[in-house]
C-alpha cells in the first residue's frame, strides 16, 4: 500500500510542480500545444473500459510521447519545456477522462499517474538537452535513433510502474506481472513507441498536418486489438458454457468448474505463470470434468478425487479426447489428459488443476472446518498425488482472503442464480 501512495504522491507532485511552472512562464507554441492536446484528449476518450488491457489508450499514449519528444515544427525549433509537456498531457488526459470518471467504469487515478510519470520521464530526458542545442549538430539518423532510445527507456520505466501498480492493487507477485508487462511491450507497446517517434519526426518535417495522417496506422492497430479482445472474450464465454454442460447434465455440482478455475488461476499466478500459460490453465480448469459426459454411470456427486487412480486416469483421457475436438490450444487437452497422472510426470498446470480440484471437492460440503481439513488431506496426500509446492501455494492463496474471496464466485444454490463476475486476465 505504501508503494501505491508513493507512486500517486510522486505523480501528484510532478503534476503540481509542472502546472505551477507553466502558469508562471506561460504557454509557448500554443498551436502545437492545442493540436497535441486535442489528439491526446481524443485518444483518452476512446480508452477501453477493460481494466486488464495493458495499453488501454494507445493513441493517447503515442500522442503524449510524441509531444514529449517534439523538437521542431515544420523545421522551426520548438520552445516548450518539460513542465509544459506534463501540463498539456495532464489537462488533455483529464478532459478525455471525464466520461470515464462520469460512468465510473475504468480506474482513472492509476492511469493518470502512469501517464504523468512516463511522459514526465521522457520529457525530462529530452527537452532540457534539446532546448540547450545539444543535438543541433547531430546527424538526422542519429537523432531518430536517440528518440528511439529515449522511448525504449520510457517504456521500460512504464512497464515497471504498471507492474508495481498492479502488484499493489491485486497482491499478485511482482515478477510475473513485470514479465507480462514486458511481453506486452513487444506487441502493441512497440507500435505505440514507433508511432510516437514517427509523429515527433513527421511534425518536425511536415508540420501539424502530419498528426491526423500519421496516427492512422495506430488506429488500425487499435481496431485490430479490440476485435481480437472481443473474440477472445466471446470464446471464453463459449468455453464456460461448454464447461457448464457437465453441470446441466448433472455430473458435477453447480459452479464447481467456476470455482476450480478461479482458485486455479490464483494459484497459477502465485506460482509465477503468465499470459498464455494462465489461459491454458484457466481453460483446462474449466473443462477438467468434461470427460464425465462420456461415462455410462455418473460419478457420485462428480467427486473424482476419491476414485481409484486408474479410473481417474481413464476419465481424464476421455476428457482430453473431448477437449481436442473443441479446437482450443492443444496444451489445454494435454493438461486435461494428464490431470490424474502422478505429479512428478505432470506439467505444472495439470498439477494445479489436480490439487485445486481435490481441494474443492473435499472442502465443499464439509462444514466450517472443511477447508482446513481438506488442506491437511492434500498435505498428507499419499504416494505423491499432489505436488507439495502447489499445495503450499494453495495454502498461501487461501490465507490471504482479500486476494481470493472477492474473485471466487460465491457458492450458488441453484442453476438459475446469476454468476457473479469473476476474474479475467486477458
Amino acid at each position, binding site marked *: 500500500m505504501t508503494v501505491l501512495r508513493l507512486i500517486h504522491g510522486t505523480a501528484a507532485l510532478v503534476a503540481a510542480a509542472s502546472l505551477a511552472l507553466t502558469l508562471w512562464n506561460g504557454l509557448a507554441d500554443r498551436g502545437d500545444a492545442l493540436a497535441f492536446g486535442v489528439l491526446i484528449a481524443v485518444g483518452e476518450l476512446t480508452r477501453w473500459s477493460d481494466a486488464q488491457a495493458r495499453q488501454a489508450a494507445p493513441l493517447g499514449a503515442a500522442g503524449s510521447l510524441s509531444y514529449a519528444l517534439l523538437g521542431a515544427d515544420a523545421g522551426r525549433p520548438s520552445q516548450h519545456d518539460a513542465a509544459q509537456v506534463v501540463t498539456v498531457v495532464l489537462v488533455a488526459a483529464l478532459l478525455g477522462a471525464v466520461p470515464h470518471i462520469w460512468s465510473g467504469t475504468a480506474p482513472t487515478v492509476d492511469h493518470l499517474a502512469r501517464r504523468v510519470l512516463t511522459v514526465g520521464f521522457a520529457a525530462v530526458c529530452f527537452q532540457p538537452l534539446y532546448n540547450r542545442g545539444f543535438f543541433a549538430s547531430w546527424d538526422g539518423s542519429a537523432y531518430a535513433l536517440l528518440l528511439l532510445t529515449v522511448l525504449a527507456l520510457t517504456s521500460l520505466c512504464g512497464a515497471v510502474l504498471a507492474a508495481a501498480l498492479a502488484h499493489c492493487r491485486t497482491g499478485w507477485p511482482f515478477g510475473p506481472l513485470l514479465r507480462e508487462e514486458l511481453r506486452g511491450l513487444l506487441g502493441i507497446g512497440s507500435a505505440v513507441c514507433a508511432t510516437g517517434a514517427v509523429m515527433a519526426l513527421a511534425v518536425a518535417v511536415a508540420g501539424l498536418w502530419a498528426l491526423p495522417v500519421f496516427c492512422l496506422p495506430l488506429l*488500425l492497430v487499435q481496431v485490430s486489438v479490440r476485435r481480437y479482445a472481443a473474440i477472445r472474450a466471446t470464446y471464453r464465454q463459449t468455453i464456460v458454457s461448454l464447461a457448464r454442460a457437465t453441470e446441466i447434465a448433472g455430473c458435477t455440482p453447480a459452479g464447481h468448474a467456476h470455482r476450480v478455475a478461479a482458485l486455479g488461476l490464483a494459484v497459477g499466478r502465485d506460482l509465477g505463470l503468465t499470459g498464455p500459460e494462465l489461459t491454458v490453465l484457466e481453460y483446462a480448469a474449466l473443462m477438467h470434468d468434461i470427460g464425465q459426459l462420456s461415462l455410462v454411470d455418473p460419478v457420485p456427486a462428480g467427486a473424482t478425487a476419491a476414485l481409484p487412480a486408474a479410473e481417474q486416469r481413464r476419465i481424464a483421457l476421455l476428457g482430453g479426447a473431448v477437449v481436442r475436438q473443441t479446437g482450443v490450444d492443444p496444451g489445454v487437452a494435454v493438461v486435461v489428459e494428464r490431470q490424474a497422472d502422478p505429479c512428478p510426470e505432470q506439467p505444472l498446470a495439470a498439477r494445479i488443476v489436480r490439487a485445486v480440484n481435490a481441494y474443492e471437492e473435499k472442502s465443499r460440503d464439509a462444514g466450517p472446518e472443511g477447508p482446513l481439513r481438506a488442506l491437511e488431506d492434500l498435505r498428507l496426500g499419499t504416494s505423491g498425488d499432489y505436488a507439495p509446492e502447489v499445495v503450499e501455494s494453495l495454502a498461501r492463496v487461501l490465507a490471504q482472503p482479500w486476494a481470493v474471496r472477492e474473485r471466487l464466485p460465491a457458492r450458488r444454490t441453484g442453476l438459475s442464480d446469476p454468476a457473479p463476475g469473476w476474474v479475467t486476465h486477458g
Partner: protein
Amino acid sequence: MDVVPARAHGYAAAVALLAALTLVPLPATPTPWSALALLTVLHTACEHVVRRRSCGTFYPVLLAGAFLLPPSAAALVPVPAALFSPVEHRPALPRRLWRAAQPALAVWGAARVHEALGGKDAVTGSDFPHVLLPVGAAALACCLVLTALDGGLRAATGLVPLRRAWRGLLARSLAPVAVHGLAGLMMAVLWRSPYGPPSALLVLLPMCVSGWVFAQYHRERAAHQATIRALVQAVDIKDGYTRGHSERVGQASVLIARELGMDDERVEVLRFAGILHDVGKLGVPTRLLRKDGPLTPEERRIIELHPEYGHEMVRGISFLGEARAAILHHHERLDGSGYPYGLAGSQIPECARIVAVADAFDAMTSTRSYSRARPVAAAVAELERCAGAHFDPRMVTALVRAVRRSGWHPAVTADEPAYGTPSSEPASGTGARR
C-alpha cells in the same frame, strides 16, 4: 483447386508479359539503385512476416516505392518477394508469375499517376496538404488495376460467371489500400527528410503489429467456431437419430430470415439460434432421447425441460444475443399451448417463431426414430395446416416461398466421427440425471 484451366494459364502469361513490358524502360531511366534494393529487401521481409499468417499483399512498402522511385523501378519492388514465396498449391510457376505480375502492374500504375500529378516534388518538399491529392489518386489507380486484373482472373478460371466477375471487388480493396497508401506516404516523406530511411522503417512497425494481431484474431475465431461445433456434436452424439438436425435447422432458419429481409447480422444470429436450439438436450438422459415407443407423462415432462437447460447453458454467451431467447422459446406455440412458459402470439420472440418453423420442417423431412422422412411437399402442406395455431403464418409463408424458389438441399458438415471414440464404451448412457 489443383486443376487450373488453360485459359487461366494464358491469362497469367499475358499479365506477366504486360508487367515485363513496364520494366523495359528501366535501363534508360536514372534509378536510385540503393533505394530500390533497400525497398525490395524490406518488402520481401515484410511479406515473409505478414503473408505467412494472413492472406493479402503487404502494400505500404510497395506504395512508398511508387512515391519514391520512377514507375519502371517501382514495378520491380514486388517481384522477388513473389518469385521466392512458397506456393501451397500446384502448379507453382503460373501462380508465382501471377503473384509477381499483378502487384507490379498495380504499383506501376500508381507510380505513373503519382508522377503525372507532380507528387514527387510534393513528397520531397513534404508539401502538406497538397501531397495528399497525388497520393489519393495513386492509391485509387492501384485499386483499379488490382480490381481489373483480379476480376479478369476470376473470369478466366471460370469460377464466377463473366457478368459477376468484377462485382464488389473495388469496394473491398479500396479501404485497405487507402490506409496502406497513407502509410506509404509517411514512409516516403520520412525517407526524403533529413532523418532518412531508418526513421521510415518505424512506420512499418505498427502496420506489421496490426497484421499480426489480425492474424491472431482469425485464428481465435476459427477456434471459437470449432468449439461451437463441438457443442452441437455433443448433442448429436446423445441423440443419434438427429445427426445433422441442428445444422439443418440453422440453414432453414437462415432461409426464413433472408426471405423476411433481415440484415446480415441478425441472419447470422439466427443461424446460431438454429444450430444451438437443442443444446439443452445435453441435460436430458440419453435413455429418454433414444427411447422407442411412447413416452410416459413423467418422461415427457423431463424432455420438455430441454429449452430451459439450453438457455441456462448459453445465457453467458453475449454474442448470441436474441438467439438465447430463441433457444428458450422454440417450443412455444402461437395459441399458447407450447412450453416452457405457454406464451402466445406476439409474446413469443420473433426469432423463436422462426426457429420453431425451421425445427418442425426439418423434423418432418428427416428420418426419426418414430417416423420416416416425408417428402418436402407433404411437410409444407402440414406446416400450412398448422399455421396460425402452432406456427406464425408469416414464417411459414417465407419458408415455403424460399423452398419453392431454390429447393431444399441442406449440406451438413458435422457428419464426421464425433468425440468419445477413443473409449470402448458408447459415448451414450449418461445414466440417471437430476
